């Protein structure tokens, strides 16, 4: 083996050792680094007198970083993909059960009304009992816990997202979870209050009653929007 082959072999040995350390980078990046290193070695050898001898190449390589130092830091190669907060997702899944429970709980009333008109009892109405009971058994427990669980999970996920430094996302979803039922209760109370006022209006003022009722709904929407905007600004 002549001197030149030995020199090339030694350089390749170093470059192969570096290549082994570059896991986690793309092939183009690896090739780029290796090509640059090869150019670096050549330039450094010229600076050492341009002698392609083993002594010269060893003198250059000893001044260079050892192959291990090319191992990329984990935080540089592993890109952190933000995940949607699990608490926020669970809260969002539970959210509809409260509404569903409210709908299901209204069903027997409509059945009974129907049966009275038709002159049959609710108990012997075909197809109205077993699935309704099944639905109740499944939806009812989830429906009962839904308002509390959704709200709590919403607040938990907001604090988790804020503390995660970008690893968790889903603030809008978490905000919906946290505020949906409290706002619903607040809206109910506000409308009830407005209708109590409307009830005090003497008969014969239909236009005023209608206007106040409309105003109540508009007021509720405005208040809701303000609450959501303030909450969003607070958690953003």
């Amino acid at each position: 083996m002549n001197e030149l082959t030995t020199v090339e072999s030694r350089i390749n040995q170093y470059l192969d050792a570096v290549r082994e350390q570059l896991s986690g980078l793309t092939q183009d990046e690896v090739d780029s680094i290796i090509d640059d290193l090869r150019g670096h070695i050549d330039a450094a050898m010229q600076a050492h007198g341009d002698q392609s001898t083993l002594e010269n190449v060893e003198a250059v390589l000893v001044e260079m970083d050892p192959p291990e130092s090319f191992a990329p830091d984990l935080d540089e190669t592993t890109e952190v993909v933000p995940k949607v907060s699990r608490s926020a997702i669970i809260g969002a899944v539970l959210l509809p059960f409260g509404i569903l429970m409210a709908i299901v709980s209204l069903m027997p009333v409509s059945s009974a009304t129907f049966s009275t008109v038709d002159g049959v009892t609710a108990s012997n109405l075909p197809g109205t009992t077993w699935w309704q009971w099944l639905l109740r058994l499944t939806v009812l427990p989830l429906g009962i816990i839904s308002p509390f669980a959704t709200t709590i999970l919403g607040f938990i996920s907001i604090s988790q997202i804020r503390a995660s430094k970008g690893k968790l996302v889903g603030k809008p979803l978490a905000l919906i979870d946290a505020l949906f039922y409290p706002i619903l209760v607040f809206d109910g109370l506000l409308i009830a209050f407005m209708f109590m006022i409307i009830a005090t209006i003497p008969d014969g003022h239909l236009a005023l009653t209608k206007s106040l009722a409309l105003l109540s709904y508009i007021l509720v929407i405005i208040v809701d929007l303000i609450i959501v905007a303030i909450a969003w600004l607070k958690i953003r």
Partner: protein
Amino acid sequence: MNRWITQLRKGLLEYLTLNILNQKETYGYEIIQLLNTFESMDVTESTVYPILARLNKDGFAQVRKSSSPDGPPRRYYSLTPKGKARVAQMNQYWDLLNQTIQQIRSRT
């Protein structure tokens, strides 16, 4: 203290490399030589070449292979328009950061 200096240098290296490439087309070895002429900088191949590879991958820098007058072909790096825009933004932010540091330091 050493850890802080290392981290700071590491963070600044991409910025400095972009600024060097913004001034002229050059190759890796020359970038290292240039940076090491400054006392505050102590850079090696294992820090500069991965940065050049990443800048190339991200489209901030482009490579041109050209034969060297006194040796094998060299890989010359230059900034792409995207890279020039990036370095302009970085310089703007650096000025702001520098201003902030000065203001905070002079608050005593």
